[in-house]
């Protein structure tokens, strides 16, 4: 069980690393660094020079740096896939009696396979905005499934956690609402990103701020929802930290993380509005959103468990 729990934790951290690398692929414009899938320019290793690019690919599409960025993303994704599949096998072997762990581990295995194959569609669609958003959403669902599995594996080892915990009333619903809004925000954000990429192609010589200006309703709703989330998170965070009896360490840390992460997100939002969109800030904006999503899920699971004890 201990091995399973550790592997589940490593896979969860791995999932977040791959989400980070995926964001990096996006902002560095390496999404089509390898124009085919699963191979890269028809080879199992990216070409090292233009002479190795097969004739059926236009040589102008070959950029060794972008090809390797995308290739490393695929290698990391594949390693993560293997880790998660081993986790699922261990779950079947050792945790058959625990329905929640089994559901979490098996869903993760299905999701990681799905993300991989859907990645092929993202490439063949030439980064079609909807396909990219689905890719991101599937990755978030995978992170959620891994968190769920890991958290319940911990509960399996220490059955007394959350036994004496009493959350303020309606915490579970409150957190669920924040979780859903976060999902909407992520989809809105990826759609905005896609629209910005289209604008960058249509008006290549305009600046970040000029492209942002043209987004209109999209960016206003993203900003508005962001501020609503900040308010809801502060309210929820305060209620949990002040009003919970015997708050477990994991939930406490997740609540603090939620508050810190939303504050950084709002700050990054202002950076985008005022000085444009530096690539580094964009990578972290996406990554922090996915971590925030995970933190809310940890609290939700904890509140649900506490409720089932009472």
């Amino acid at each position, binding site marked *: 069980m201990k091995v399973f729990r550790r592997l589940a934790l490593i896979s969860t951290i791995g999932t977040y690393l791959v989400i980070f690398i995926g964001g*990096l692929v996006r902002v560095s414009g390496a999404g*089509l660094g390898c124009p085919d899938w699963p191979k890269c320019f028809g080879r199992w290793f990216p070409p090292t020079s233009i002479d190795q690019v097969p004739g059926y690919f*236009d*040589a*102008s*599409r070959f950029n060794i740096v972008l090809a390797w960025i995308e290739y490393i993303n695929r290698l990391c994704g594949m390693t993560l896939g293997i880790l998660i599949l081993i986790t699922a096998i261990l779950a079947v072997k050792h945790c058959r009696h625990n329905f929640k762990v089994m559901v979490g581990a098996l869903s993760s295995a299905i999701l990681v396979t799905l993300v991989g194959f859907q990645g092929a569609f993202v490439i063949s669609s*030439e980064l079609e905005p909807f396909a990219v958003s689905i890719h991101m959403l599937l990755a978030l669902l995978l992170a959620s499934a891994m968190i769920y599995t890991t958290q319940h594996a911990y509960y399996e080892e220490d059955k007394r956690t959350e036994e004496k915990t009493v959350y303020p009333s309606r915490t579970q619903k409150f957190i669920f609402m924040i979780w859903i809004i976060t999902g909407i925000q992520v989809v809105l954000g990826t759609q905005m990103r896609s629209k910005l990429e289209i604008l960058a192609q249509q008006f290549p*010589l305009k600046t970040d701020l000029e492209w942002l200006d043209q987004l209109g309703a999209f960016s206003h709703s993203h900003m508005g929802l962001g501020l609503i989330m900040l308010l809801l998170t502060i309210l929820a965070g305060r209620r949990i930290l002040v009003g919970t009896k015997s708050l477990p360490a994991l939930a406490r*840390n997740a609540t603090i993380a939620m508050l810190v992460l939303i504050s950084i997100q709002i700050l990054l939002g202002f950076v985008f509005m005022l000085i444009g969109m530096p690539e580094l800030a964009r*990578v972290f904006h996406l990554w922090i959103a996915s971590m925030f999503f995970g933190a809310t899920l940890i609290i939700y699971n904890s509140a649900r468990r506490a409720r089932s004890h009472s």
Partner: protein
Amino acid sequence: MSKHSQTKMIFGLFIPIGLVMALIAYFVVDRAKESVSDLPVIGEIPQFVLLASDSTAFGTEELKGKLSVVDFIFTHCKGPCPVMSANMAELYDKFDGHPEIQFVSITVDPLTDSLGVMQEYAANFGVDDKRWRFLTGQIEDIAELCEKGFLLAADDLPGNHSTKFVLLDDQARIRGYYDGRDPASMTVLTTHIQSLARQLP
């Protein structure tokens, strides 16, 4: 360990990890940007003078100081030319309002493509300013320019002309070749024009 010191330790760990990841991300993004903006110099266009469809001379001097995208076509071509010119028209529209970026189509069938025919062809693609020029001349001069200047095959013209778009910098140097029929190549070309345009003095 108390709950509070455990929290401090966890969040204390996040800061160095975050910094390391920021450094890695910075390095990767920087290398990616550099790889797009550092286009190799493939060759230099020799001195030439052809005739534009508005009866003015157009040569190497007109290429200097601007970025140029050049292709070789002929107006009654039923093969790749309509797609190539449609893609060129899309680029022409994208860079509307930027006279520092020009498009040049050189006919490989000067006997058929008179100035009037080329003007009509240009009008069909919505050309209404001097950002997209159509050039003609003696077929021998055009074939030599195509082969020795632009380093493209020029055997068996007009039927067997190249479908490449050639990107030239402001010193009339070749910086890239792109498949004029492939939308993905056009995306790459747009990024390269954008990158060179931002380096213009």
